[in-house]
């Protein structure tokens, strides 16, 4: 590319209310220092229309111009046309799109200056700003053992490279393991997930570390040193034969995490029957021995000597890896925040995740749909003794698309709600189902077809969000507006399912500090480029997979898991890895520009 002799810059800063955190004055000062910048205009200097722009171009003899700002693409056609009318080459309208360099909270002014400097020199930022490279440790750390983390781990292991898979809970599988069927194919979730989970456990290249958490990360791309807290399971994973004798005898109870608190488990337990590793563990919080010093019932009955060690303590290990894949998943929206729906007060208002457990054959009711009832100790749980609902309502967009909570659409709730309608009809033929939605978002392959299929079934799908749920005569009374009919809609049902949205997991904040990767406004981890680089982060060697990057469904989580693995494998194959993008200082960029333009000049003279 030829270094343009005379360049003009148009700063596109129409001041979208308070959404313009860029210091344009500073940028203008910087741009003035370049001898080949002849004129600079701001948005408010004159009215940007075809006529005025053409005049400016003609009057100043501009044949090369830069439009810089947030979303400058919006005005590109205007400039191209003006250039064409003035008889200049419209291809010489160069965009400096600052929104690509937003770091999550602020704009890094040095980055913006670097971008400008490159474009003024007639070079693209990407060709100049190539980070330095480091050698790579071939081992990879995957944080989070949901479907995304599992997929990433397997892909890397299949390339015969070592993986540490660190999972916070006692089993891998994540949310998907709790589901019965998945949309839109209505595949049995366990049937497709369990083989992968087992494979993770058996693959010699995968070091599965459950009940563990990352404590500290240091180093840089290619060689990260990671301190991991290994919580005491108090049951030896190697020797436990999973016979379950201990659980039978254990007197202590606590709500089951895996069933989202809808059933009770013992203090020594296996999260669910297909858990991987398929071994028992002890929850120190509820274990009577650990609280009072008396009991040891499990130890007494365990057939394997020294398998249970109630005095085992947490410990830490440090590992060294070259790449890190973050796959920490999502946290469901806390439905208690929307008191109008009565979740937490009205026992038969359920969250969608709780309902998934009701549908699941390995769940507390064996896959039958029953109302929630109280056990002898007063815990509200699901049992098969309780009655079955006749009328069920499903409310969409709970906590999503709501400025009081999360502004964004959670992407999967419309589809899983439709899935619920279908599965309820399958399990409770003749049940009356009402779905209340605002917009039906059935994007994606086979999704609209799935929606059409449900529409044919005996489900009432009504446009209009329910405004509130109240208890009336032991039933649940709903009030909303049927938008299409323009009438107030009132209904009395037995069970209400809240289609709660997806939020960034709790640890996202701590992890983002620990790993030095930014988060976007909505709390999820931020990718380098939304369109073109959705798995990389601004730190070299750290990638994102699954719902920790933003709401998405299983197919997309899996795809991103594979993509992140590809990035790790790429660096391992090459033996080298780029350092952080943000680590290139402005001076280095300026030096490189000088060098590159000199090379170009020499080429020209040859």
């Amino acid at each position, binding site marked *: 590319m030829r270094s343009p002799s005379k360049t003009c810059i148009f700063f596109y800063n129409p001041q979208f209310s308070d959404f313009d955190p860029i210091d344009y004055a500073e940028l203008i000062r910087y741009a003035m220092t370049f001898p080949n910048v002849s004129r600079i205009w701001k948005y408010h200097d004159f009215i940007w229309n075809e006529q005025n722009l053409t005049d400016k171009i003609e009057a100043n003899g501009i044949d090369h111009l830069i439009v810089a700002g947030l979303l400058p693409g919006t005005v590109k056609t205007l400039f191209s046309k003006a250039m064409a009318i003035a008889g200049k080459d419209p291809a010489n309208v160069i965009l400096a799109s600052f929104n690509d360099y937003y770091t999550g909270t602020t704009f890094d002014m040095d980055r913006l200056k670097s971008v400008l400097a490159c474009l003024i020199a007639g070079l693209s930022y990407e060709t100049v700003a190539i980070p330095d490279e480091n050698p790579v440790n071939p081992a990879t750390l995957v944080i989070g053992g949901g479907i995304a983390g599992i997929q990433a781990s397997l892909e890397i292991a299949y390339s015969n490279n070592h993986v540490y898979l660190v999972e916070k809970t006692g089993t891998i599988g994540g949310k998907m393991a709790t589901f019965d069927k998945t949309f839109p194919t209505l595949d049995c979730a366990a049937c497709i997930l369990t083989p992968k989970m087992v494979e993770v456990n058996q693959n010699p290249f995968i070091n599965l570390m459950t009940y563990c958490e990352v404590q500290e990360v240091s180093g840089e791309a290619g060689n990260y040193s990671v301190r991991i807290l290994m919580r005491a399971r108090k049951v030896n994973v190697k020797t436990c034969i999973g016979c379950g004798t201990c659980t039978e005898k254990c007197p202590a109870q606590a709500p089951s995490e895996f069933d989202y608190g809808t059933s009770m488990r013992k203090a020594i337990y296996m999260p669910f029957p297909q858990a991987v590793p398929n071994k028992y563990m002890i929850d120190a919080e509820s274990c009577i021995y650990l609280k009072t010093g008396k009991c040891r019932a499990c130890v007494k009955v365990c057939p394997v000597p020294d398998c249970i060690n109630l005095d085992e303590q947490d410990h830490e290990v440090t590992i060294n890896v070259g790449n890190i894949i973050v796959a920490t998943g999502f946290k469901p929206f806390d439905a208690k925040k929307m008191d109008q729906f009565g979740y937490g007060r009205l026992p038969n208002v359920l969250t969608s995740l709780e309902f998934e457990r009701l549908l699941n054959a390995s769940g507390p009711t064996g896959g039958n749909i029953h109302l929630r009832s109280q056990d002898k100790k007063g815990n509200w749980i699901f049992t098969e003794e309780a009655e079955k609902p006749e009328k069920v309502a499903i409310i969409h967009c709970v906590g999503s698309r*709501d400025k009081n909570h999360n502004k964004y659409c959670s992407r999967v709730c419309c589809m899983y709600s439709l899935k619920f309608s279908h599965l309820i009809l399958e399990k409770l033929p003749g049940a009356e189902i009402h779905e209340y939605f605002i917009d039906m978002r059935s994007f994606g392959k086979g999704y609209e077809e799935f929606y059409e299929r449900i529409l044919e079934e005996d489900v009432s799908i009504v446009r209009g969000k329910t405004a509130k749920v109240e208890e009336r005569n032991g039933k649940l009374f709903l009030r909303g507006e049927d*938008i299409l009919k323009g009438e107030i809609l009132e209904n009395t049902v037995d069970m209400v399912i809240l289609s709660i949205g997806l939020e960034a997991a709790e640890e996202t904040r701590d992890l983002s500090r620990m790993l030095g990767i930014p988060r976007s406004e909505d709390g999820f981890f931020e990718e380098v480029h939304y369109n073109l680089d959705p798995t990389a982060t601004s730190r070299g060697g750290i990638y994102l997979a699954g719902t920790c990057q933003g709401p998405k469904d299983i197919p997309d989580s899996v795809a991103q898991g594979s993509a992140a693995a590809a990035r790790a494998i790429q660096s391992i194959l090459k033996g080298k890895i780029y350092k952080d993008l943000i680590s290139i200082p402005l001076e280095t960029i300026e030096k490189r520009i000088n060098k590159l333009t000199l090379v170009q000049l020499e080429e020209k003279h040859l």
Partner: protein
Amino acid sequence: MSVRVHPELRNQLMQFGIGDWNACYHCGTCTAMCPLSEEGFLFPRKKIRLMQMGLKNEIESSVEPWLCYYCGDCTSTCPRDANPGELMMSLRRYLTSIYDWTGLSKKFYTSEVWEIGSILLIAVLVVIAFLIGLPAMGYSFTTELTSQGGVKINSFAPIHIIEAFDWAMAIVVGGLLISNILRMYYKIIWKHGHTKVTFWVHVREFWRLVFNFSVQPKFGKCDDKRYWFSHWFLMSGYTIMFIVVVVFLPWFQTEKILPPWHLQRALGYYATFGLLFGLLVAITGRMRRKDVKFYFSHVSDWLFLVMLTLTVITGILIHIFRIYGMPYATYIFYIIHMAVLVPMILIEVPFSKWSHLAYRPFAVYFQHLKTHAVPRKTKINSIN
């Protein structure tokens, strides 16, 4: 009937209030949350739709904005921060300007210069009338006190002149208001194409007007009963004051100091307390902005509150100074009192905030007329 779309409607409405009404995605939460919305007269969502589509005629023939008492339940639950409650408030301001044929209402609502300018102008005229007009007509006041030691107020403000002026003002204001209500009737009932309301229904439903005016049952339906009370107290105080001052002025503005339990003083005290209490709630609410209904204050809201407070305070001061025999102070505050009161009544009652006192009960009346409307006979019908 063809439908005319007015895309500029939204921008026009923005001058009457604040809200991002285009943000509404029609989930219906607001309507279902609203304690006053009822079948056949659903709001606020439907009104937002009309606004978004620019259906000016439909908006102008709506009674719904007057049925909303701005409890704010809709705004606080709206998932899009579209602020439906403020839209209803803005629609009330807009409708006031539409009913008003003089065009002044629109000017007052959309231009602060106009509103404050006219208030100042009238205030200055009032001061001139007292300082130059009355003396020029040959009236001179006295600083002598009555036998009870009170101020001879009628020597300063001759009762027959003030009364005549009061009546004149009442007739002008009443005339404007009545003509505006007729226009409101025309827009809501008459112009509405295909239906007609029989005379009998007009008579039968009339009680609603009286009932809604005096009790304000709709306001009581809002969840927070405190506001019903303070608003009702304020409204009843205001109405009593208005009637007493306009219709019974000679009985009210006396030089004789009556015992405090006398009806004249008792009514005065009741009205004063009602006004003060209501004002206190409204002013502290608007300052603290804790309740949704007080989030946004239009200039007209503040102006009105300030003027009414000034009127009440000066009224109290006149009363005190008169009883304790302080003629100059009495006279000065009498002028200030009138300089605030007259523009307030002339501008607020027919053209601005206070007109809702009349429009609201009429809207309920019209609402019931609408429910009992029968299809108008068309030619085809009569042939059959």
